[in-house]
């Protein structure tokens, strides 16, 4: 079973450089307190998974140090591994085994005694809502079920720190919410420290006590979601014209008040440079142009605004422009 619950995660100047490639992780510093949920937010290829692989001891860092649960990730790998649970990017499951067989294997490999294995496995399968499907082969599970089993397996030995690498990517909203609830419960009720990487703003917003935003291997912002948004974010005004043909004209008017932002297919949006006080001016400008409005909404600042302010790009689609060699631990040979 896991070593006693203690410190969280401390990272100093951590670097990972790949042969003939850029620095996937370029000197990051961070600290996650015990019992905290830390959201590591960034686009594809930003360095999130590489960081997780280093912190879980599956990839040696090129430079820098990190301590996980009080243990050095390079010198005390086995202690780190006994203190952590991890659900890495793809749910790494064997499609030919059942959920229960996965639990048996995982608990046995962690050295849990035979009598405890069944009870521990059953308890975890029940907790993630898989007791009915426990004897079915994993190949027939839905994406959400696989992710929940992945989480149960990560918890098999009662770790004090949990690493979740993009745990809800590709899941429907119902499965995503269920997983968020379980992760929140683990931190709140069991004091588990959670290091969660995500490219979903709402996930970081909903779950994390603190958020680190990573881009091109460097942390560009860190703090509580509220503080980050208050510091940098600007509200977005979104409008839908009564006549769909007026959409482009509407967008041009809104652009007078700030740069264009993502909106619904029928509407247009802009980030207000002057904050919410500009809303009245927006209404007057639209009225002055004779554009009839069906709907007008003011959105609070988001973490995407924070990302935009720090990197000059929107988080959505930012990963498409520069794919760095995201690490695969076992593929690093």
């Amino acid at each position, binding site marked *: 079973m896991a070593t006693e619950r203690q410190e969280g995660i401390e990272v100093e100047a951590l670097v990972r450089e790949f042969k003939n490639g850029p620095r996937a992780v370029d000197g990051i510093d961070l600290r996650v307190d015990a019992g905290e949920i830390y959201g590591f937010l960034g686009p594809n290829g930003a360095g999130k998974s590489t960081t997780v692989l280093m912190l*879980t*001891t*599956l*990839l*040696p860092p090129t430079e820098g140090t990190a301590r996980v649960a009080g243990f050095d*990730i*390079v*010198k005390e*790998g*086995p202690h*780190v*591994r*006994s203190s*952590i*649970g*991890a659900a*890495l*990017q*793809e749910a*790494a*499951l*064997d499609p*030919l*085994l059942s959920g229960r*067989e996965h639990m*048996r*294997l*995982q608990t*046995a*490999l*962690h*050295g849990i005694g035979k009598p405890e294995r069944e009870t521990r496995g059953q308890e975890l399968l029940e907790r993630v809502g898989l007791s009915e499907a426990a004897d079915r*082969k994993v190949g027939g599970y839905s994406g959400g079920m696989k992710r929940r089993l992945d989480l149960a*397996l990560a918890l098999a030995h009662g770790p004090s720190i949990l690493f979740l690498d993009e745990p809800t990517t590709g899941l429907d909203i119902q499965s995503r919410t269920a997983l968020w609830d379980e992760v929140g419960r683990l931190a709140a009720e069991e004091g588990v420290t959670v290091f969660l990487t995500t490219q979903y703003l709402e996930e970081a917003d909903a779950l994390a006590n603190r958020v680190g935003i990573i881009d091109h291997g460097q942390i560009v912002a860190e703090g509580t979601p509220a503080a980050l948004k208050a510091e940098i974010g600007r509200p977005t005004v979104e409008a839908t014209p009564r006549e769909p043909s007026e959409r482009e004209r509407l967008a041009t008017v809104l652009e007078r008040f700030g740069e264009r932002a993502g909106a619904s297919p029928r509407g247009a949006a802009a980030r207000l440079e002057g904050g919410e006080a500009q809303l009245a001016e927006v209404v007057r400008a639209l009225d002055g142009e004779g554009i009839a409005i069906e709907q007008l909404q003011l959105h609070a600042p988001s973490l995407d605004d924070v990302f935009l302010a720090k990197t000059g790009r929107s988080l959505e689609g930012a990963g498409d422009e520069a794919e760095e060699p995201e690490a*695969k*631990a*076992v*593929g*690093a*040979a």
Partner: protein
Amino acid sequence: MSSGLRTQVGQLAQRSVRRTLRQPAQIVPALVFPLFLLAVNSGGLKDVTNLPGFPTSSYLTFALAVPFMQGALFSVMNTGTDLARDIETGFLNRLALTPLRGAALLSGLLAGTVLLGLVQAVTYLSVGLIFGAELVTGVAGALVIIALSVSITVAFGSIGLFAALRTGSGEAVQSLFPVFFVFLFISAMSLPLELLQTQWFHDVAAANPVTYLLEAFRSLLFEGWDAGALALGFGIAAAVLIIGMFAASRAMKTRLVRT
């Protein structure tokens, strides 16, 4: 072996056996393909037994050694592909996060290969005997044939493990199959070594270890107990296993880069 290591090997062996049993697509071709070739060859080449110096009057008996080797070649592919899939899906990462030892992983993975080797050996031998092949060494000889077949299957399986760990790709492992098949063709597969008249082919076959593995089976089938042939057969299997496991262990250290 410590109890922890025993548990690890046992659990991974169970998984390996379950996986093998749940993949009929792995088992069926490894049984059907060699038997199909046996039927074709023993029918088409039966007159070869009239050649002066041919050691048996039954070409089926002579050719029955070949399926055991072909089955072992399938084990390279099946064992290697299973491990490569674990690497590709990240399952090996999951295992790497547990206190699992590399030796336990390799040994456990070969458990499924042992099962496959056993099923193959019993099937080939039974079908051969049903269709009239000789077995001059009797029941004891049958048991030794099964033991030799399983040994060779496991030995070749270790090469599959090495290939999987080195390349991390199921496709790369499967591409080894034709390469290994060439080794079978350039051996004394169709004729005894002494009757291979073309000098270069004779020399290549004489240097090919597969020839001596075939001769070990043939000694039990129609010659009688031959300690030298058996020692050579089991010795080659042991050497391949040692080399395969050594190479696989080295590749495992590079592949499992955990600190």
